[in-house]
């Protein structure tokens, strides 16, 4: 199905169109990340409807739009968004592959300090894996950490 010309259409209306017209896509990819040394590893799960929009193209705004809104919200005098038009009027991104969509999602939904220097420490702060690679049970969930055995040396295959 061809995506209508959506630039200038409210993002919420685009999502309504997508919900009506696109089949959801359950991704097997998961993103494990640590954003604090004092907290357990977190696991990011892509939403099936969002993934359908990403694969379809022409619906979602570029990821920098979300960064701009996050900057606004971080201001101490923030009350409400006044630049929501960026979501609606910016040219939507083209169709992505599932892998590109996961990269986009990391940059949208993971804290920036995690993905900007994900491999700068002794172990990666972020790992993309398959669902079946996660622990099979929830035992000791609040103690889960990314393994220190994972190499951050880019010359070594992980």
């Amino acid at each position, binding site marked *: 199905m061809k995506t209508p010309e*959506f630039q200038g259409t409210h*993002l919420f209306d685009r*999502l309504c169109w997508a919900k009506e017209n696109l089949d959801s896509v359950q991704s097997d990819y998961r993103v494990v990340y640590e954003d604090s040394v004092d907290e357990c590893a*977190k696991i990011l799960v*892509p*939403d099936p409807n*969002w993934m359908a929009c990403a694969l379809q193209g022409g619906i979602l705004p570029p990821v920098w739009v979300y960064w701009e809104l*996050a900057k606004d919200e971080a201001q101490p005098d923030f009350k409400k*968004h006044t630049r929501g038009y960026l979501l609606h009027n910016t040219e939507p991104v083209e169709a992505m592959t599932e892998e590109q969509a996961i990269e986009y999602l990391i940059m949208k939904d993971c804290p920036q300090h995690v993905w900007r220097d994900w491999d700068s420490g002794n172990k990666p702060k972020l790992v993309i894996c398959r669902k079946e690679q996660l622990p099979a049970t*929830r035992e000791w969930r609040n103690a889960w950490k990314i393994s220190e055995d994972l190499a951050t040396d880019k010359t070594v295959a992980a």
Partner: protein
Amino acid sequence: MALGKIKADTLEHSTSGSVDTKFVVEGSFKTYARCVADGTSITKSFNISSLADTGTALQTLTLTNAMSDANYPGVATSGDSSCNMAVDSHATTTYRLVSNNNAGSLTDSITQSGLLGDVA
């Protein structure tokens, strides 16, 4: 975009009075999600980009279309009758769900949630 559109500020019934469509628009869910108890998948959703399993009984949902401000009402229920659930933190693009059992301990359970108010 070729979508039909009705524009009206008021809906009026012949005998039962009228309602400002603002209440209809603001009073409809702008996002909803039902997620499995262990946070590994989203069963049903709208206007959600991801679910983050952030620990036992803690799930954070991120929106595709942000809310206009962070003071929106959020509702949450557990799919398990022995658990209570709350939306315990709000931002315009994320909200966190926490699930407790009747003894007050954090316990994983099926999460069902939605947000009302205005989108950005």
